[in-house]
């Protein structure tokens, strides 16, 4: 684990340094080749078989408004979890990439309590081949870094060519886990991808920016976070749902991953939730009636908000 990554979680307000810029060669936009995990690095260039790991978070159904547990100050997660919609884009993109490669498979990695798999089943029914779920009582209270450590260890076992995640989850939306995973695995990290094309041992990625998009290229394996809405996730077919029933799901504990309990959970968390309070009720808006000067009052109002 790098100190830098720890610092990221300790201080959430600090702008996350973007791994793309940090490690890219400014002239070509090409990553300086970084070693992956030594000898086990797959020979992607020679083989068309693509192995893509997608990190998928399983979250409480946003349609059933959740409640906070006043004791732990966290979201209650005792009801059934579903696939985070943010991750359905990564799953779809992975399936398309494997399709385009003509050979290969998509593996899912998720960390969630109680070996919960209902969200994974959705992604398996979409077409992923297999999954890993990491559950452990010691993971209670894990922050983004703790989560990243677990995911990185589980991902490494798969020896993938490419790792996809969402830019941020729908419930926690720290927006840091994929970059931490990349740092922990010592892999290049590309964020905000709107499209990915694989060309030999490299990925060509369009990454969304405020002005448009950057075209970047990086060697594989790499961790890429996918922007929500950039592809249309398929809905599982009933045959896919039936097939998903018998797809392998590997259930792991942190012990299986060689992670110590004090690295994760409440024990390892670099962040603490000090207090929770209700969001203030929305105050009534001001209705501006037009007596001829409405435009001036609106301009003054916007000025005050400093949005002009």
């Amino acid at each position, binding site marked *: 684990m790098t100190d830098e990554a720890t610092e990221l979680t300790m201080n959430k307000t600090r702008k996350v340094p973007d791994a793309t810029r940090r490690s890219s060669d400014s002239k070509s936009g090409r990553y300086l080749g970084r070693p992956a995990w030594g000898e086990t690095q797959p020979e992607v260039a020679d083989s068309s078989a693509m192995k893509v790991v997608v990190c998928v978070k399983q979250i409480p159904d946003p349609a059933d408004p959740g409640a906070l547990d006043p004791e732990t100050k966290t979201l209650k997660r005792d009801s059934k979890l579903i696939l985070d919609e943010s991750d359905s884009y990564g799953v779809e993109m992975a399936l398309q990439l494997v399709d385009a490669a003509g050979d290969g498979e998509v593996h899912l990695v998720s960390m969630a309590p109680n070996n919960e798999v209902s969200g994974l*089943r*959705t992604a398996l*029914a979409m077409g992923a081949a297999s999954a890993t779920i990491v559950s452990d009582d010691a993971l209670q209270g894990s922050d983004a870094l703790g989560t990243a450590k677990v995911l990185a260890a589980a991902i490494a076992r798969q020896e993938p060519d490419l790792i996809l995640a969402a830019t941020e989850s729908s419930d926690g939306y720290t927006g840091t886990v994929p970059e931490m995973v990349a740092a922990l695995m010592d892999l290049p990290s590309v964020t905000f991808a709107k499209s990915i094309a694989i060309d030999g041992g490299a990925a060509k990625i369009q990454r969304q920016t405020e002005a448009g998009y950057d075209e970047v290229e990086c060697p594989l394996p790499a961790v890429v976070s996918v922007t929500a809405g950039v592809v249309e996730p398929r*809905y*599982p*077919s*009933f*045959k896919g749902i*039936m097939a*998903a029933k018998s797809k392998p799901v590997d259930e792991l504990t942190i012990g299986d991953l060689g992670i110590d309990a004090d690295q994760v959970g409440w024990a390892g968390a670099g962040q603490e939730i000090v207090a929770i309070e209700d969001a203030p009720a929305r105050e009534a808006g001001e209705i501006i009636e037009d007596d001829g000067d409405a435009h001036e009052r609106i301009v003054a109002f916007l000025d005050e908000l400093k949005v002009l």
Partner: protein
Amino acid sequence: MTEYRAPLDDIRFALRHAANIDALAEMAAYAHAEPDLVDGLLDEAGRFFEQVVAPTNRDGDTVGAVRNADGSITTAPGHAKAYGQMCDAGWGGIGFPEEYGGGGLPWLLGIAVQEMMTSANMGFSLCPLLTQGAIDALLHHGTEVQKETYLRKMVTGEWTGTMNLTEPHAGSDVGALTTKAAPAADGSWLITGQKIFITYGDHDMAENIIHLVLARTPGSPPGTKGISLFIVPKFLLNDDGTLGDANDLSCVSIEHKLGIHASPTCVMSYGDNEGAIGYMLGEENQGMHCMFTMMNNARLSVGLEGVALAERAYQQALAYSHERLQGRAIGAEPGTSSPIVDHQDVQRMLLDMRSSIAAIRGLCYRNAEALDIAAASTDDDVRQRADELAALLTPLSKSWGTDLGCELTSIGVQVHGGMGFIEETGAAQHFRDARIAPIYEGTNGIQAIDLVGRKLGLRGGGVIADHLGSIAATVASMDGIAELQSVRTILASALEAVTEATQWLAENAGDMPAVLAGAMAYLDMLAITTGGQILADGAVAARSLGADAAAERALLARFFAANRLAGVPGKVPAVTAGAADLAQARATILS
């Protein structure tokens, strides 16, 4: 407009406690319908219809299907795309044999999926529904070659199907139809004639349409005995199965309707030029028989339309009742306005909707379960009994389901007050959409005739006697359950009244006008009593599902018993009145 949320808890409850889907999974034919697979399928189907189909419902109504200058039909925005996604997901095929690409799952589960599809967009749902009818007819009566040729693409939904019975002078009386089929040299037939009211007779959602057309062959006997069924594809097939020439048929106009605007209702013309090429399905002059084999399924599905629209109307009414502030409810703080859901009369309307939906959903699901057992039990006796029960329940599901669909969607409008009458609110659409269901697939009047004319006499009256016996068993099962005593008493009186009415009909079987005069009142009595039975069974079963479920199900059963079931004995006079007053009225008031 509220969004549609698939009522998965209620659907699961009906699947397990009105029907028993887990017991079906114990039959060899449905062995793969294990509980966790059923749950997974319901979750994903719910998500699909909520997210993909339900959002098209408004455009389906306000834009609707349109006929272009060149005669082609364009469905409302988003419909073709949603339909394509549905074919990819395969939801139309789950109840059909795996051999043809279906899921081989119980029809019951298909009915649950169909309910969600219909709630999401009824006008849309009719395309898969008619296709399902055509598949059913092909499965039962097609030759091996015909099945191989058409079924696979129809099960996926890539090709859709239609049913062509109605003609201008042949509606309820199908036997009056005049469309002709002339033999061609190669063994096929040339069809000429006009059909009206053909649902999805043409559209832009699929690459081919397989029309099933009823017509007369030369020299056939008059009436229903002289009708044959033909497969008439929109595009003929080349030898390699690819699409070939357009057949000689066209949609000459579409109707402007009260509701289901998304569904094109077509006037179809066959054989304006050389004759539309058709292939006989089943035996010559056996067309009506072929129709009957698919009728139970089709009628059940139409009954389910009532459930589906009432459910969507209920969700919308419930949401509105929490938003709309009006008046001060008893006990509310002075000077405040209460959400209308705090008013007792609004609570009454909502509970009437909710409990009646649970009753009719339960009836439809139990009916579907009977169809499944009748199709797949290995025990002849069990199969026979299930077949008889399905025959008895089908007219109840169709008629009571669709009448309640109209009534409950009307209550949905009422909950909204004036806004309910305003189209923008969307409550009115459900009310308008619901109104067709009592009419097509055999009017409700025809259902009542079917019940008293054909079904009561099954096995010498043994079928209805068994059913009434099962209601008596439900009454007995509530002995000693304090919170169900009102239900017990009211269900017992309803049963007594139905028994009396049944006896009267049996004794007066020779006086056909008298029997027909009381047929609809009798159907309602039997259906409401069966609905009460199903809610009572659910309340008893829920006692082992935890305190909340037990309390909720008991409440629904009590409310339904007091508000609807208690009215059953009051209908006896309408059944036993005889036809004398009607005859006198015909000569005077109605002359």
